[in-house]
């Protein structure tokens, strides 16, 4: 049975239409994962030295135990963002004479094969043998690291439970992060010592086999709960992890007065607000407005490498335009035929998309005005970059997004979803972020950085002035490519 499932899973992957295209992405992700694993292992070997010599801890194990609760909390949040609930794909098996519980045991068991579940071994494994084993003996060390591995499994299943119960919304995680950052601050200022609690709990990790048994019981308990919940909710119509629907929101009636263009913008706003993936993008964009906080307070960036502010400006004012725009046509892949057969010209469609991207960028810019606190030149730079985004980058994005866009299944979740990624998405970043420097660098190298920034803004203004012409050109290209794009969207 298990072999059949594995076989089907393999066939599903190798026989999918986009197999060769996904291969590149998969290999890339694999390499990135291996790199992260290597870094973690290196850090794991370095950890004993770090704790003992660099941080001058007489009791490195005890100190580690103080921090462990934060590590596991971080692990939880990280998994919440990365891990998916593996249920939807079992539908074809539900009506066959296969034991329901067998399917679920298989699903839950297979989900354990996730790189995240090895990370704790890489990170703490070296410590177990270099520090714990010499002090406490090999048995204790093995139980110590084994117990932590089991705790990672417990978190793995706990995250799944959480995701099923919370419907995969971002609010749950935002709440968690807020609460735990609060606890962390309280710890730092000494109001409430979560690290003491952590030490109290994890000092038991040195108890040897009984600790291992305790951890095992914990995993078994959480696995049992997960098993029961999954078994009870495996009916085709109530597959866990699906969006609970609310109705009728996201209708901006004032846009109707703008005529056909307003209707299309209104439609796209509904698309963004009512589907999980673009909605997540919107939240992330709001979050990335704070990106400036990393750079602006730091004189290294503002004074020594002022050119870097251009990058920040492009990013902060254009984050939504870039993230949403790279899949500009894929978002509507499920009803692209609709767009093509209804009485609307592609010029109007392109125009409505431009205004949507532009309006959000302007809003982003307005929200970054408080950064004036760090100097007026930041607002000036951002304004220039806003112009560049509106006049140049918007058109680069709208045109590059036409480069064999892929279908996006809007029912799939948001974070770290790579569906729809193609060649265009890899290349797009280059012109968007390097473009401004083509105009900025010559003047900056001659000693006129301010003039360089102004020139970038001026180029953007030119683009905005020639907007009708650029929009016509974009619409013409879409007209030429629409058959190919529609064809691609009709395939899976």
């Amino acid at each position, binding site marked *: 049975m298990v072999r059949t499932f594995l076989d089907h899973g393999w066939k599903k992957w190798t026989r999918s239409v986009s197999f060769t295209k996904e291969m590149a992405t998969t290999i890339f992700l694999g390499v990135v994962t291996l790199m992260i694993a290597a870094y973690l292992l290196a850090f794991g070997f370095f950890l004993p030295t770090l704790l003992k010599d660099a941080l001058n801890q007489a009791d490195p194990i005890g100190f580690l135990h103080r921090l462990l609760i934060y590590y596991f909390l971080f692990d939880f949040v990280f998994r919440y963002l990365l891990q998916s609930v593996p249920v939807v794909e079992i539908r074809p098996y539900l009506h066959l004479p296969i034991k329901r519980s067998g399917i679920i045991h298989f699903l839950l068991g297979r989900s354990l094969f996730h790189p995240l579940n090895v990370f704790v071994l890489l990170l703490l494994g070296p410590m177990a043998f270099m520090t714990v084993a010499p002090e406490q003996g090999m048995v204790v060390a093995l139980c110590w690291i084994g117990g932590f591995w089991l705790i990672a499994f417990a978190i793995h299943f706990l995250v799944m439970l959480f995701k099923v119960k919370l419907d995969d919304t971002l609010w749950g995680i935002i709440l968690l992060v807020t609460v735990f950052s609060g606890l962390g601050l309280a710890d730092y200022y000494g109001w409430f010592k979560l690290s003491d609690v952590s030490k109290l709990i994890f000092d038991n990790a040195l108890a040897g086999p009984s600790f291992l048994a305790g951890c095992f019981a914990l995993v078994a308990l959480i696995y049992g709960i997960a098993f029961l919940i999954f078994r009870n909710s495996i009916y085709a119509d109530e597959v866990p992890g699906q969006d609970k*629907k609310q*109705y*009728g929101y996201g*209708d901006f009636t004032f846009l*109707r007065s703008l005529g*056909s263009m307003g*209707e299309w913008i209104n*439609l796209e706003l*509904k*698309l963004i607000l*009512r*589907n999980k993936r673009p909605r997540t993008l919107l939240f992330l964009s709001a979050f990335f407005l704070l990106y400036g906080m990393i750079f602006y307070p730091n004189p290294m960036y503002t004074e020594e490498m002022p050119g870097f502010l251009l990058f920040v400006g492009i990013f902060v004012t254009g984050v939504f335009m870039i993230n949403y725009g790279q899949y500009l046509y894929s978002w509507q892949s*499920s*009803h*692209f*035929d*609709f767009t*093509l*057969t*209804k*009485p*609307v*010209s*592609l010029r109007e469609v392109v125009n409505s998309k431009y205004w949507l991207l532009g309006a959000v960028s302007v809003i982003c810019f307005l929200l970054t005005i408080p950064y004036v606190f760090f100097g007026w030149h930041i607002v000036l730079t951002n304004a220039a970059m806003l112009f560049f985004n509106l006049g140049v980058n918007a058109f680069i994005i709208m045109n590059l997004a036409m480069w064999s866009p892929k279908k996006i299944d*809007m*029912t799939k979740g948001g974070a770290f979803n790579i569906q729809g990624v193609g060649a265009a998405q890899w290349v797009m970043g280059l012109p968007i972020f390097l473009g401004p420097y083509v105009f900025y660098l010559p003047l900056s190298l001659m000693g006129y950085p301010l003039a360089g920034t102004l020139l970038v803004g001026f180029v953007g203004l030119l683009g905005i002035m020639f907007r009708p012409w650029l929009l016509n050109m974009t619409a013409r290209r879409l*007209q030429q490519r629409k*058959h190919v794009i*529609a*064809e691609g*969207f*009709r395939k899976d």
Partner: protein
Amino acid sequence: MITIQSLKKAYKGVTVVDVPELKIQFNESVGVVGNNGAGKTTLFRMILDLIRPNEGSVMINDVNVQGNDSWKQIVGSFLDEGFLIPYLTPDEYFRFVGRLHNYSPEDFKNFYAKFEDFFQGEIAGKKKYISDLSKGNLKKVGIAAAFMGNPQLVMLDEPFENLDPTSQIKLKNLLNRERQERSVTYLISSHDLNHVTEICNKIIIVEKGKVIRELDGQENMLAELEAYFKA
């Protein structure tokens, strides 16, 4: 209404559609029948400029559909779920399509009145997104929307598929009533020979992308069709 000239489409050397000439007059009701893989949907998509033909052209009212948008005002179509917007409720979808045809509140009222019986209380005013509707109700939404803007040409691909028996009869009546009240051209594909002969006064049999035969208003169309497909 529709003039097709030497229209050809091939995928990887296999000819899917090959129609040297086909004319459909205004106010005709044309049924397209043919077994699976005959090229019906591909033909429909080329008429709607969704697929670029390798050769030939499609004219609607003497306007080439390729490179023009004006014909979209007078053509209503529903081929598949790609013509629906999954994240809207049916009412929002109708409102959106209606606005594209400059519908007034009065027009909307007439629209809902016309389709009230066909909807059987399951579509209008329901708080459900189109993505959550059953196959039958999806069909109903798409068909109704294809009639918005009182189009001169209505194109439907398998409109009876997935409809329950009551709805099938209602749809048949609706299609016939519409043609009694005003002049409208139909282009309808179907696997149900009974339905298609009851609605259409002309039937085109396609096979392997070619128009094999045109049956024109004969009394015994059904018998002829059955004889053809038995062989």
